[in-house]
């Protein structure tokens, strides 16, 4: 029975796999970042159209590796945005994108295989990386550039009061997508207060028939399933209580089981778990849990759904040929504050350029990427990208959604806060809260039980 001998080998092998997969983690010290950058050339003044890049010169022939979650075609736009920088300074930026970035980066860093620069979208992950001891402090030029951002941004790029990473792009989460055409045909107007929005929803629900409902939503998103619902809760917490409670909520001074957060959950439930209002074009409330966030808003185009609360980057999900404009097929309005006394609550997200090497060429790239000149260059390449850098030339934005987002993100009077779940420890923000939201929407678990489960995940040690 030779045939079976092979099965034993296979069996032994697969038994081993369970432990091998886990074994990738080795405890203890962080890896040493490896830089392939050469450097060492004497600085040469750049002339002609290269003159603006003089500050970054002197490292010709170096290669700086960069790792992030941005994939093609957005990553192609990044590559184009620094093409002139590479041509003039001779520093090649080798960007690699991964759709499992959040789990890949710790493995790379821990394995001593860290990229020179990483574009980290979660302050929580940044804090985790800093705790490995592998993150290098930014050069003086980057620290100086940081003044161009609102103070809140600097704090999200800092860990325990030390500034580590400058923001790169920013996205605006407090938006509601709708169909201007559908609104116009039915005499609906864009709401400017929370009460207006609730009234509009019930008016719309009264008018709609069949599977059509005023709101739609989808929170399924692979390993990250549940995140859109965390945004809904964050919007309501920020819009009801303002920045202080929001910050205390992130640091767990205010627990999920706190009456304030419970009230916010109730507001979310009345809004997006209302059987008369959701889930437009798909089915019942529970179907929100199984609908992918990418597909969530598509019923808007068929007039099956009135509105979708989703971030500015949802623009990329509309099918080719959809006109995104105030008079087009779809557009977005700013989500009003639940409590009108909270001044322009804006929830956003973004990425932070984190260095694992202090090589001069790497620092030159860091300085360049934190400059308003680079942001301008990126904006010119393609729409769908916004910077919260206040020095950026606002007239460069061509896309209406970019203009709308930039208007609020660069507004110094707005109550800006970063996505809370991205800022909380990963065990909560990327674990228990995601699962909790899915249980809340999909399995009908009570808000109190969901809160209890999330609070329990907050490790005390």
């Amino acid at each position, binding site marked *: 029975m030779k045939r*079976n001998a092979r099965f034993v080998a296979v069996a032994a092998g*697969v038994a081993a796999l369970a432990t091998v997969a886990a074994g990738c983690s080795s405890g203890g010290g962080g890896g040493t970042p490896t830089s392939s950058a050469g450097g060492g050339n004497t600085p040469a003044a750049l002339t002609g159209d290269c003159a603006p890049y003089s500050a970054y010169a002197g490292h010709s022939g170096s290669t700086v590796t960069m790792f992030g979650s941005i994939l093609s075609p957005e990553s192609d736009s990044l590559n184009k945005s620094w093409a002139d920088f590479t041509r003039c300074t001779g520093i090649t930026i080798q960007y690699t994108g991964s759709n499992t970035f959040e789990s890949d980066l710790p493995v790379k860093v821990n394995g001593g295989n860290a990229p020179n620069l990483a574009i980290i979208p979660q302050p929580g992950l940044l804090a985790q990386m800093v705790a490995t001891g592998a993150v290098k402090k930014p050069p003086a030029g980057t620290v100086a550039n940081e003044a161009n951002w609102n103070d809140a941004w600097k704090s999200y790029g800092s860990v325990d009061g030390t500034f580590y990473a400058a923001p790169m792009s920013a996205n605006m989460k407090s938006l509601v997508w709708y169909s201007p055409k559908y609104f116009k045909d039915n005499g609906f107007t864009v709401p400017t207060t929370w009460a207006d929005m609730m009234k509009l929803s019930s008016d719309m629900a009264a008018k709609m028939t069949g599977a059509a409902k005023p709101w739609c939503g989808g929170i399924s998103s692979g390993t990250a399933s549940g995140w859109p619902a965390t945004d809904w809760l964050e919007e309501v917490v920020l819009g009801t209580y303002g920045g202080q409670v929001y910050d205390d909520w992130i640091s767990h001074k205010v627990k999920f089981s706190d009456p304030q957060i419970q009230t916010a959950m109730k507001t979310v439930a009345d809004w997006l778990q209302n059987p008369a209002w959701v889930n437009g074009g*798909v089915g019942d409330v529970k179907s929100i849990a199984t609908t992918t966030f990418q597909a969530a808003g598509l019923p808007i185009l068929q007039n099956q759904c009135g509105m979708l609360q989703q971030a500015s980057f949802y623009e990329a999900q509309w099918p080719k040929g959809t006109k995104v404009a105030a008079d087009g097929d779809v557009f977005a309005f700013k989500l009003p504050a639940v409590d009108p006394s909270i001044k322009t609550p804006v929830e956003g997200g973004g990425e932070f350029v984190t260095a694992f090497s202090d090589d001069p060429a790497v620092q030159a790239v860091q300085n360049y990427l934190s400059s308003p000149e680079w942001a301008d260059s990126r904006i010119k390449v393609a729409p769908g990208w916004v910077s919260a850098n206040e020095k950026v030339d606002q007239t460069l934005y061509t896309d209406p959604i970019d203009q709308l987002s930039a208007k609020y993100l660069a507004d110094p009077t707005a109550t800006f806060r970063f996505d809370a779940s991205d800022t909380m420890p990963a065990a909560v923000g990327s674990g228990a809260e995601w699962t909790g939201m899915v249980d809340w929407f999909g399995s009908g678990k009570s808000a109190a039980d969901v809160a209890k489960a999330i609070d329990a995940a907050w490790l005390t040690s």
Partner: protein
Amino acid sequence: MTASHVVMASSVAGQAATTLLGVIEAVGGFVAILFIVFYVAGRATGRLQKPIALIICLVPALFLVALGLVIPAITTINNSLTNQQFLGQQKIKYIGLKNYVYAFTDPATQQTILRTVLWLLIVPVVSVGVGLLVALLVDRMKHPSAAKTMVFLPTAISFVGASVIWRYVYDYKDPSLPQTGLLSQVVIALGWRNPPNWMLTAPLNTFLMMVILIWIQAGFSMVVLGAALKAIPEEVIESARMDGASGWRLFRTIQVPMIRGTLVVVLTTVMITTLKVFDIVFTMTNGNFSTDILARRMFSDMFVTSQVGRGSALAVILFIAVVPLVFYNVRVLRREREIR
């Protein structure tokens, strides 16, 4: 624009060339070392010949086993005793068996373990049952290869691929809308007005996902068991027939005992696959809606939610659960070899 495209293209080609060169270098170096080792060993004679040959044959295997199995296993067991939260964390404390206590007391993890046991009991038995049935039936068909291919095809599909296919089968849309899910469409056509959202309805969703694994594994058991059935000597069957056994009786008293060894091996092999099944649950529900199983939970603890200690403890539990199956598998094979 074109210029930058060219630059990008050439850099991609350059990277590819560098990688290729690296691969050639590594493989070439490996072959060269092997060549030298074998050459030296070939020259050795006399008393040293046997020990040298032993070492040369054993060392690479031992090295690879240590690198790929023993060291990671020890690291994982070590991690499972710590409060480590993420890879590369500094200041890690040993907390004894707390992670194991957590695994067996946390209600969600308890359910996950129970659910894994359920998978373990149902999937192998049904897969082997279906495989055996198909093997017996197909044997009497005119063109067995066509039917066999149909049943065996899913075995060739990756778990993720299969899950993506089945996601369309289980897709849910409000009954008033045009359906995209095959299952919903079929039951609506059969007169069930309001089919549930399949992947949301616990515990039905777990069983529906088991169907996917059975669909994949049945082909495998059919092929192996079919071959074992064919290997039964024709004389045995004939003499049994002459003694009056046929149909069910022939199957139960002659065929099954004669392929018992293969049956056990297929059963345990499918069991081991089931224990590690990760892809299906990961792709279909990501462990949500009360469908989580051990392997997926381990992955998410390790790589998504940064709880390396807890994830490692689950990995060790999984490992301990697989070991007896492997031992049993090996023992059955040994005994069979002795008989022959």
